[in-house]
């Protein structure tokens, strides 16, 4: 009976998630879990939460990079927000952003990424490595370089695409700016979805797929009935992150500079122009706040969508 008294941390409050198993498999306990999370949370608090709240505050001022408003910024309340929503440029930017996110993130990156992961799921060997390697290359190359690649590809006169298609003089970036940046961003970001779905598909028990195949399920039915239920969580994570990043992606600026005439000025580019080029930091921060709110709505929408089917 040497250890009749128990050490305090061995009796954590019941943390069981499901009634059957405690989720705290390693016996971490709240105190130690806190210690594990502390470094990350501390960094986040100092370098993320604090400045982010500061940005939200800036959105309520008329702060500018230079000029009198830089010396003595004034609190203007919701004026910036109201200015934004009464500005047609802002609304066209928002609409373009929605197209951009839907086209390049949800359909482009998620769709293509899943398709590649699915096509290559049972493959080994050089073909898979080459395809995956190229897709990932597009993702890890620095955007400063990538923008040049795409200008070279889509250029009106010497562009590779026009040379291949035999369409000299076709101005992709001018006549189809949104299509261009959507395809560009699909090219750029597919790797992340591909990797995530590749890992997720590895988790789908082969036996489930086999039984579906035996039951005569078509490819699509297999996906719908076996694969999607298994990777629903991954889909949620992926959609959430990809949409969030795409909303804030500023790299279309490098390709079209928001042009021609604002026809590809997505919100992130709008903020860049407003904040960096015009120095209107207060207004830029307010638009950032609006982007945050839109992202919030999108996140809630995804959560609802994927939870309701559970």
């Amino acid at each position, binding site marked *: 009976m040497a250890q009749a008294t128990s050490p305090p941390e061995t009796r954590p409050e019941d943390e069981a*998630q499901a009634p059957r198993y405690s*989720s705290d*498999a*390693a016996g*971490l306990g*709240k105190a130690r879990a*806190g210690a*594990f*999370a502390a*470094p*990350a*949370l501390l*960094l986040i608090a*100092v*370098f*993320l939460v*604090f*400045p*982010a709240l500061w*940005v939200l505050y*800036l959105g309520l001022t008329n*702060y500018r*990079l230079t000029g009198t408003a830089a010396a003595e910024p004034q609190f203007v309340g919701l004026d910036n927000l109201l200015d934004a929503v009464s500005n047609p440029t802002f609304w066209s930017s928002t609409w373009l952003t929605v197209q951009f996110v839907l086209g390049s993130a949800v359909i482009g990156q998620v769709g293509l990424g899943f398709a*590649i992961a699915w096509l290559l799921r049972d493959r080994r060997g050089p073909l898979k490595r080459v*395809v*995956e*390697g190229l*897709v*990932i290359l*597009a*993702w890890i190359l*620095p955007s*400063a*370089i*990538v923008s*040049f*690649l795409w200008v*070279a590809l889509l*250029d009106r006169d*010497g*562009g*590779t695409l026009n*040379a291949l298609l035999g369409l000299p003089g076709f101005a992709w970036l001018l006549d189809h700016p949104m299509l261009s940046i959507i395809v560009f961003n699909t*090219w750029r970001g597919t790797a992340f979805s591909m990797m*995530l779905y*590749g890992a997720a598909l*590895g*988790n789908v028990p082969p036996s489930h797929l086999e039984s579906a195949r035996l039951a005569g399920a078509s490819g699509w039915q297999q996906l719908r009935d076996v694969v999607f239920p298994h990777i629903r*969580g991954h889909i949620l*994570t992926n959609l*959430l*992150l990809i949409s*969030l990043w795409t909303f*804030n992606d500023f790299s279309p600026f490098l390709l079209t500079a928001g042009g021609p005439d604002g026809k590809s000025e997505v919100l992130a580019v709008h*903020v860049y122009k407003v*904040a960096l080029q015009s120095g209107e930091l207060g207004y*830029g921060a307010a638009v*950032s706040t609006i982007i*945050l709110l839109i992202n*919030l709505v999108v996140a809630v929408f995804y959560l609802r969508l994927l939870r309701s089917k559970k």
Partner: protein
Amino acid sequence: MTRFVLGRIGFYTLIAVLLAFFTVPLLWLVTAPFTSDPTYEVRVPDFTWDNFAALLEHPYALPSLWNSVVLSAGTAVLVVIFAALAAYALSRVRLPGRDALLYALLLLSSIITGTAAMVPLFQLAVELNLIDSQFGLILILTGGLLPAAIFMLKDFMDSTPKSYEESARVFGASPLQIVRDVVVPLVRPGLATIAVWAVANVWGNFLMPYLLLSDVEKQPAAVITYTLYTEGGQANLSMLSTFGLLYSIPVVLMYLFVSKKYGFRFHGGIKR
């Protein structure tokens, strides 16, 4: 049988289209550096090394690549370690409001990577005396990347069977031992993915390094890339393409190394 053949044909057609889609834009990067006076047109290069020779004489180009390595490796290491610990704790111990907290942090992280955050981040760095310090920049970049990293890693952690840890626990392993011996190896592909993701993010980041590092000798390649323009803002394509190629090689090597060593997948095999 015909269905099978058609399927094969369809498969290889798709793969061919994909390969073309992902290869064609890269052509410029592999031809322009070897061309004497590159334009935006992809041409058969005349295989000159002059552009590389010119780059070697550039006083900041090669050192800046090293700075990029330092910044991205430092950030990736911090992100992976801190995110792994936090994601593990959050995955295994249910704290009230955990999910809401994660979502909120994720949303805030999007603000901090935007242009509008540069003033707060700059002034914060000034206050904390982190201006012109690579370490300070690493901390700031890490803070911005952590929420998404935790979010992704938590997914990986959630999907590892808990019996591994319970098993180790019954054998007497401490929580840290469990993390080291069991959890980390199990989610290693996830960690590798996060590391590559973090590196890719930092590797291309221009604005923050430029604003926070004044000393050109500390600035990463992304900043130096932006200097390869003329007084009037015209791109120096021979330098840019050449530097772009060199700038791309380290990340490609890193990817090859990581994917060979760790793969980007979960260990399969154990049926559950």
